[in-house]
């Protein structure tokens, strides 16, 4: 029913478009590691929104254009103040905080005056604090959508230049009109904020700048994909947030921002490439793999061992020990009879190979890296689980197939099944 309802349909689409724009510009700020600047610039729009709205309301029936102009100019002023403070060597976090609250204080001062002079206008303008979509009129929708499209078009048209600006600053500084492009990007950033505050609100605007970028970054390394994913995600947050806020009659901005933040955190946890969940699984798998190979080694050296003996040697939780042993048995490297684990021929070969790699690496470290003999064991303990057969054969060639390791112990040949002294 929300899709067909004429009041909501256009405004919701416009609102999604506004969030999309914010998401795109947010990606740029995110890559410059300056995400928090959006927080300051959005709060700085508050006095602009009030003054612009107020002045325009004296001359026109609709104060809407004044709000945009005012917010853009005050936000720009805040940006210049930040630059000035940076020149004066005020640390960045302090200047962000200070400019933010000073500009906001100016807004609160003006608001307190407006409240007594023009209470109705004050009420209208207060919606910019937390955002409201439903009260947008058709001409507003057109202007907001138009501005969003302009920003989107700019990003698509000048994509290669933006890429250069973001990733190759040194080159950009020399070759391109560096200041011009940077100012253009800053202006677009500000405009996207000033558009976005209508639907997300001044206080939570920075959420809509940051969340889509974080979300997209969890899935891709490519800039073009980053823009695509962040933009789509931003638009979806705007769309769903609006609908949810209507259904539960909640303020629009917080719903959109919460939606964005929660999904971004979800992406950080569950994304297949960079998500923490899959990373942890990968790490645990590797640990288990290392554990298994170490167990093979110690059973090989002891020529069979019981669970208790193994646990003495590998002080880990018995559960993990049993897990590793079960997996080894499943892979036919181990067999057990009456509580004593011993190696199968296959397990024997594997254990010998691990020892071979360990000793090869020790030779490599002493001969080619100039490490002293006492120090090489620890590194070899780690490398023996990592080195692939290709690297093994390269090492053999490089070291001209050595027979003794630095400690004097024999190195088994590639196809040996035991270590002969």
């Amino acid at each position: 029913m929300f899709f067909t309802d004429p009041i909501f349909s256009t405004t919701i689409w416009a609102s999604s478009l506004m969030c999309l724009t914010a998401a795109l510009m947010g990606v740029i700020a995110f890559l410059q590691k300056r995400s928090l600047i959006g927080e300051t610039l959005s709060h700085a729009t508050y006095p602009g929104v009030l003054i612009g709205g107020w002045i325009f309301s004296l001359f026109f029936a609709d104060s809407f254009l004044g709000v945009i102009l005012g917010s853009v100019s005050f936000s720009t002023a805040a940006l210049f103040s930040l630059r000035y403070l940076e020149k004066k060597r005020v640390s960045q976090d302090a200047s962000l905080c200070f400019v933010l609250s000073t500009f906001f204080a100016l807004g609160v001062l003006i608001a307190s005056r407006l409240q007594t002079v023009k209470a109705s206008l004050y009420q209208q303008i207060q919606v910019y604090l937390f955002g409201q979509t439903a009260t947008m009129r058709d001409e507003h929708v057109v202007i907001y959508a138009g501005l969003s499209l302009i920003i989107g078009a700019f990003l698509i048209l000048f994509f290669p230049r933006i890429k250069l600006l973001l990733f190759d600053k040194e080159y950009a500084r020399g070759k391109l009109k560096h200041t011009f492009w940077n100012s253009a990007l800053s202006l677009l950033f500000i405009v996207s904020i000033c558009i976005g505050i209508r639907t997300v609100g001044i206080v939570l605007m920075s959420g809509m700048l940051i969340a889509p970028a974080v979300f997209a970054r969890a899935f891709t390394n490519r800039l073009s994909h980053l823009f695509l994913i962040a933009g789509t995600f931003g638009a979806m947050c705007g769309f769903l947030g609006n609908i949810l806020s209507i259904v539960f009659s909640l303020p629009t901005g917080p719903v959109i921002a919460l939606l964005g933040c929660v999904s971004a955190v979800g992406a950080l946890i569950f994304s297949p490439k960079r998500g923490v969940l899959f990373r942890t699984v990968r790490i645990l798998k590797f640990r288990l793999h290392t554990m298994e190979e170490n167990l093979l080694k110690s059973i090989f050296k002891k020529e069979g061992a019981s669970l208790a003996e193994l646990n003495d040697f590998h002080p880990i939780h018995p559960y993990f020990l049993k897990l590793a042993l079960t997996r080894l048995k499943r892979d036919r490297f181990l067999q057990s009879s009456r509580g004593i684990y011993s190696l199968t021929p296959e397990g024997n070969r594997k254990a010998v190979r691990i020892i071979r790699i360990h000793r090869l690496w020790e030779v490599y470290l002493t001969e080619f890296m100039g490490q002293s003999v006492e120090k090489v064991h620890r590194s070899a303990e780690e490398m023996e689980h990592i080195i692939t057969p290709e690297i093994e054969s390269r090492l053999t060639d490089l070291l001209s197939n050595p027979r003794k390791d630095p400690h004097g112990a024999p190195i088994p040949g590639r196809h040996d099944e035991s270590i002969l002294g």
Partner: protein
Amino acid sequence: MNPYWGKDFLGFFFTLFERVFLFMTGRGDALFSDELQLLILGMLSLSCGLIGAFLLLRKMSMLANSLSHTVLLGIVITCILFRFADIDMQSIDLKILMGAALISALLTAGLTELFTKLLRLQEDASIGLVFTGLFSLGVILVTLYTSNSHIGPESVMGNVDALHISDLKSIFFILMLNVAAVALFYRQFQITSFDPVLAKTLGISVTFFHYLLLFLCSATVIGAFRAVGVILVLAFLVGPFLTARLLSHKLKHILFLSPLLGISASLIGVALSRHFLSVFNMPLSTGSIVVLTIAAQFVAVLTYKSLRKSKLIKA
């Protein structure tokens, strides 16, 4: 009858001196609203000046910005935990205050750290993500719980005129907390701020004092909640320190100067607000005037310093 009624800027100070004299000689009567505002803003500046210095030295001011947003969620959660039928923002009692301060400090700092360390997110983005998420959750919960859509804007803007004598109590308590903490742990704070490695070798837990500072900060923000709102309090934390930093390089001087600057800004701000009301018949937000005064102090000192540097003014 409020004796400050109709007084202009200078008249305000004369009346104030007169009233202080009366109080000193034991002939004072009830506090009037201007004095209440002055006391609360003054104590707030004192608290903020003390902990603001340490916050800024550790480059934690954006974390303070986060806290200023997340205390709303802290308050809501505490109120729900204490099973109050409705959240009454008119009076925040000490129990709720301490609970909320603890919860919001732990949530904000803990989550931000979790995001940077475990989820490997860059720091600026984790700060932004945490506080916007928690703040929007706070606003939504407040709206659902109280079906009052005004709390959000009120918490952001604050209102000095709606202050009550009970606010004086809570802000006094917070001031005492801050003073006690800084007096007791001055050296620990100093060492952990300037030389975390030395602190570690001396056996001072950097993490503990990090969280203690965050707790103090969130308690102070909550104390400021009703008076100036959660955003303007940032200026109280940051502004006087920046000005004091221009004037001195010694921590002890800064710790003395920044509360002083804050208090003087509060005095000027309250007087200006009264002046505008009396002379131009304009009721203005006192909190924002104080913040703008703090900003003006900074700009004035900065200009003076630059002029002296360019030899336009002889030292």
